[in-house]
């Protein structure tokens, strides 16, 4: 028998699941040795730059390319006219709509793509852009979505006039995109009619942008001789890009190779297909030369996918004790000029119907109306699963507002409404099957850690002196890991994910997964899964993603789907290998496979000490001595179609103080408890939570894509678009509980988006809590000093008597 010490040592050597192993990616990133799209330099490469509209809404009267074409080094100026013969001046979106690749007769948002200049280098391309003369006839701009369906609203999409469908069901106005309803409206209305208490509140999730550090871009390289197209691209879903490019270009999918190299953050911004990509690909096919297109920061913030812009009205019906009886929600969703919302095809509002949250709400109804406005298209899931941030935001604000109305403590009202641990698996009123959870334990742990009663006492005492202190609580449930192919697909492709593992004769391995890391550390964590499953050290397990010529087809990384779907595929592929290894071991040890026990890194014959084969030995044998009739080699592929989503959850608490003369907010304490089931790498989890909380802080406290009344963008540089630095970022305290997912092979759930989803309402609840005693029920984000001061000033709290 192995001693406990030997056993532990062997286990530790693997650096498998549960190990806070250092990230394999970091040595190259911190030494500037990463390889991003803009690091790709190919011989003879040309550069594309985009001519953009200065107007939010205008008719294009003429485009004059002459001066630009006269500049030496400018090779072409592409416009919609040039793309028309190829039928590429419009392209399909992931949401069933179409989007102009280059503006076709009119522009519908400021900075819209009007022409693309192709030149010998990026400086000449920029000079060329300046020389393209476009004549516009400005049209009235529609900026406020609340007026989108007015009788006299300007019609944005003339291409859709007369069509009562834009890819997501019936529309009722030229600027209407879809109406999506879920739940039992009649039953909900009945409960509202007779409830003890009801609350109703308009809650805004303003338009923001994921703003990854690396902007979007690509290098398209078409080899005319071979008829092959290679595209290096900032994509969170390279295989989907390959399918779309094949459908658009008519090239066989086998002749297209999409490579996502290192990606400098995605956060949903890199899910879609953008006009710049299409322009670069077309130009490369035309010239037979590589063409690079890289966005500037301004272009990124102005045009490639934004997030949120959900104008919600929430209502709760409850009894006198604060037990919620029903939820009713109406949402106006501003999708911009084209419906390029990123979503599984059948979900026009994503998984917004998770809006019953962590609470046992018997009846609910939600309705979402999508409208067009003269703004950039998008509506992506910014560090969250599809529309989950919006959903959680709504319910977490509403439960606070209900508590306020009833005079019940905000923690207490949550305990009264939580889905109880024994209710799992739990079927929600809006149709979801929550896999596992223990909400009361999580919240209790947080309240104890921060000494909640003492904080409330301090707050009460501060209030007597006119000081503003807020305590925010958020107990969220996420829905991640899209998703079961029975209800999730993208353009008809089921949302499975995949892993292929090859173990080499000497006991090292390469694994290729259909997802793509953008900072999440997949190269580290997937190796850990395989290490534990196969008993090989994670150090010798190479993980590759992002090259469609080598990785198996996968749907990519967003919506926290890598661990729930790709991680499950990885575990299952490894298990297939272990099954084969067991048979090889049995053959080598001349026993039946049933006589073997698996122990960390080897098979042992039951009851016969010393009779064992390590995985390393088995790997060697797989290439020279396998049982008769068995194929040689040690390889496996798994395409994993998840049976359900996973439902990570958490309890967060924020304490902040507000300067009542400047409106500045200082976060004093932020305590985040997350439960993501089995924890693969605690250090990476903590890092992801820090990152997600920082982005949550950014959204809650400052981020806003702002427009003036004419549709001109006011915040498209990092001077005005808030990206917190280390100076502004609060200190984070993290904690966890572990409630494994019952259906995931490892019991793991996604985690990296939870802090964003749960963090935003926590901050906003804290700011609102600071004013709750003054009768304020809702202050919308972002809570900039200016915005907070407006509330203070209206209430006269800054008076110096």
């Amino acid at each position, binding site marked *: 028998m192995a001693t406990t010490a030997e056993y532990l040592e062997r286990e530790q050597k693997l650096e498998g699941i549960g190990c806070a192993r250092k990230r394999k990616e970091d040595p190259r990133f911190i030494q500037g040795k990463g390889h991003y799209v803009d690091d790709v330099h190919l011989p003879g490469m040309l550069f594309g730059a985009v001519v953009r509209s200065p107007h939010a809404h205008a008719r294009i009267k003429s485009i004059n390319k002459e001066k630009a074409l006269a500049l030496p080094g400018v090779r072409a100026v592409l416009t919609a006219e040039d793309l028309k013969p190829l039928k590429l001046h419009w392209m399909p979106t992931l949401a069933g709509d179409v989007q102009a690749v280059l503006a076709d007769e009119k522009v519908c948002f400021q900075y819209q793509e009007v022409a693309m200049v192709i030149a010998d280098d*990026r*400086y000449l391309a*920029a*000079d060329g852009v*300046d020389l393209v003369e476009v004549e516009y006839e400005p049209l009235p701009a529609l900026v406020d979505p609340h007026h989108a369906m007015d009788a006299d609203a300007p019609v944005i999409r003339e291409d859709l006039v007369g069509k009562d469908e834009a890819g997501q069901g019936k529309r009722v106005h030229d600027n209407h995109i879809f109406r999506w309803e879920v739940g039992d409206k009649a039953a909900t209305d009945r409960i509202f009619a007779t409830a003890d208490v009801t609350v109703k509140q308009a809650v805004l999730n303003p338009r923001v942008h994921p703003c990854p550090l690396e902007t979007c871009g690509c290098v398209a390289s078409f080899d005319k001789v071979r008829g092959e197209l290679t595209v290096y691209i900032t994509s969170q879903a390279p295989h989907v890009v390959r399918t779309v490019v094949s459908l658009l270009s008519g090239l066989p999918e086998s002749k297209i190779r999409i490579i996502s190299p290192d990606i400098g953050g995605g956060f949903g911004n890199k899910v879609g297909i953008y006009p710049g990509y299409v322009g670069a690909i077309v130009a490369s096919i035309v010239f037979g030369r590589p063409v690079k297109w890289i966005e*500037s*920061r*301004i272009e990124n913030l102005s045009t490639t996918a934004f997030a949120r812009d959900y104008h919600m009205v929430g209502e709760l019906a409850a009894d006198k004790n604060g037990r919620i009886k029903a939820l009713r929600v109406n949402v106006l969703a501003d999708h911009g000029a084209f419906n390029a919302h990123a979503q599984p095809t059948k979900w026009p509002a994503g998984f917004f119907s998770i809006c019953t949250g962590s609470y046992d709400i018997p009846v609910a109804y939600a309705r979402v109306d999508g409208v067009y406005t003269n703004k950039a298209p998008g509506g992506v899931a910014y560090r969250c699963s599809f529309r989950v941030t919006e959903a959680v935001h709504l319910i977490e604000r509403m439960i606070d507002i209900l508590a306020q109305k009833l005079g019940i403590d905000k923690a207490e009202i949550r305990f009264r409404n939580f889905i109880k641990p024994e209710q799992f698996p739990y079927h929600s009123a809006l149709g979801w099957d929550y896999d596992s959870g223990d909400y009361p334990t999580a919240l209790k742990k947080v309240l104890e850690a921060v000494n909640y009663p003492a904080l409330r006492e301090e707050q009460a005492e501060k209030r007597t002196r006119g000081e503003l202190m807020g305590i925010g609580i958020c107990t969220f449930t996420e829905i991640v890991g899209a998703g079961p192919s029975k209800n999730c697909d993208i353009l008809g492709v089921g949302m499975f994910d995949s892993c292929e593992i090859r173990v080499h004769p000497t006991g090292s391995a390469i694994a290729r997964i259909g997802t793509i890391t953008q900072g999440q550390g997949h190269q580290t964590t997937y190796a850990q899964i395989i290490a534990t499953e196969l008993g090989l050290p994670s150090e010798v397990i190479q993980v590759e993603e992002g090259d469609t010529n080598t990785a198996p087809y996968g749907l990519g990384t967003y919506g926290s789907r890598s661990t729930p779907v790709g991680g499950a595929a990885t575990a299952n592929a490894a298990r297939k290998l272990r099954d084969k290894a067991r048979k090889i071991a049995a053959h080598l040890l001349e026993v039946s496979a049933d006589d073997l026990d698996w122990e960390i890194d080897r098979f042992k014959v039951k009851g016969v000490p010393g009779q064992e084969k390590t995985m390393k030995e088995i790997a060697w044998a797989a290439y020279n001595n396998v049982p008769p009739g068995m194929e040689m080699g040690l390889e496996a592929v798994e395409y994993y179609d998840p049976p359900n989503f996973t439902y990570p959850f958490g309890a967060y608490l924020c304490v902040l103080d507000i300067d009542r*003369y*400047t*409106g*500045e907010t200082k976060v004093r304490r932020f305590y985040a408890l997350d439960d993501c089931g089995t924890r693969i790498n605690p250090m990476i989890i903590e890092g992801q939570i820090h990152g997600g909380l920082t982005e949550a802080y950014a959204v809650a406290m*400052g981020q806003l894509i*702002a427009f003036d009344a004419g549709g001109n963008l*006011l*915040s498209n540089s*990092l*001077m*005005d678009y*808030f990206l*917190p*630095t280390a*100076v*502004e970022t609060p200190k984070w305290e993290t904690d966890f509980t572990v409630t494994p997912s019952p259906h995931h092979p490892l019991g793991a759930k996604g985690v990296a988006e939870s802090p964003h989803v749960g963090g935003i309402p926590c901050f906003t609840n804290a700011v609102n809590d600071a004013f709750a005693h003054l009768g304020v029920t809702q202050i919308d984000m972002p809570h*900039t*000093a*200016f915005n907070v*001061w*407006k509330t203070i*000033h209206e209430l006269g709290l*800054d008076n*110096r008597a």
Partner: protein
Amino acid sequence: MIPGTFDYHAPATVDEAIRLLGELGDEAKLLAGGHSLLPMMKLRFASPKHLIDLNRIGALKGIREQSGMIHIGAMTTENELIASALLREKCPLLPEAAKWISDPQVRNCGTLGGDIAHGDPGNDHPAVMMAVDAVFVLQGPRGERLIVADRFFHGLYYTELAPDEILTEIRIPAVSKGTGYAYCKLKRKTGDFATAAAAVQLRLDGGVCKKINIALTNVAPTALKAGDAEMSLTGKVIDEALIEQAARKAMAVCDPAEDQRGNRDYKTHMAGEMTRRAIRQALARAKGN
């Protein structure tokens, strides 16, 4: 984010720079730290055909004291101001304010002269210069002239500098005993310009305010002197009521532009609040001296 084409010149002396400036005329721009000019060029708000780089001119650098005045070369960087022991002792408001400018990258390159010459009301040094009674040395083909900070800033990006002149030096009287100072700046985040800021330098004698300068940043097309506020405190023993009154007088001179930092009302109130805080802090420091 790519500038148009330009020629680059790197003179070694002030005379050569002035000659180049004269020859190349309107098409030329002086390049100091580049942290205001280059962003404007990248956005193609400015497209000079020639850049005359002042970084090789040693005579434009350095900080020294000469008969009670501190002389600072226009090409002295923010970080050099912050690191200067002489300034900390003889003109402490300047390094204090410099710390509030943007971030370490900008402060490594950005210069005092460039910050002043740019004529941007969002820049911090113009108000600081007014608060410390700075004198600017302007050199051109016709020789040298001196001008006090109060008279230098005429409008948005519009200063007393003639197109053929260079700001070569900044001269500031060394502080005397009983001086207190403060720069209070409200900004949204590191790297941001002021929503509003107030520079205050005052001198107490037997508890009485003998002289006070109050200047405001980013609440008008130029940095502003709050003259009425200064007058209301001069010759007085400053107390909270007087501070409140002075803050209101400072607010009265504000004429800010609305932007993402806030509307006119907010910025005006913040100018008042920064004034209160700066006077209080300056007072406390003067009493400690």
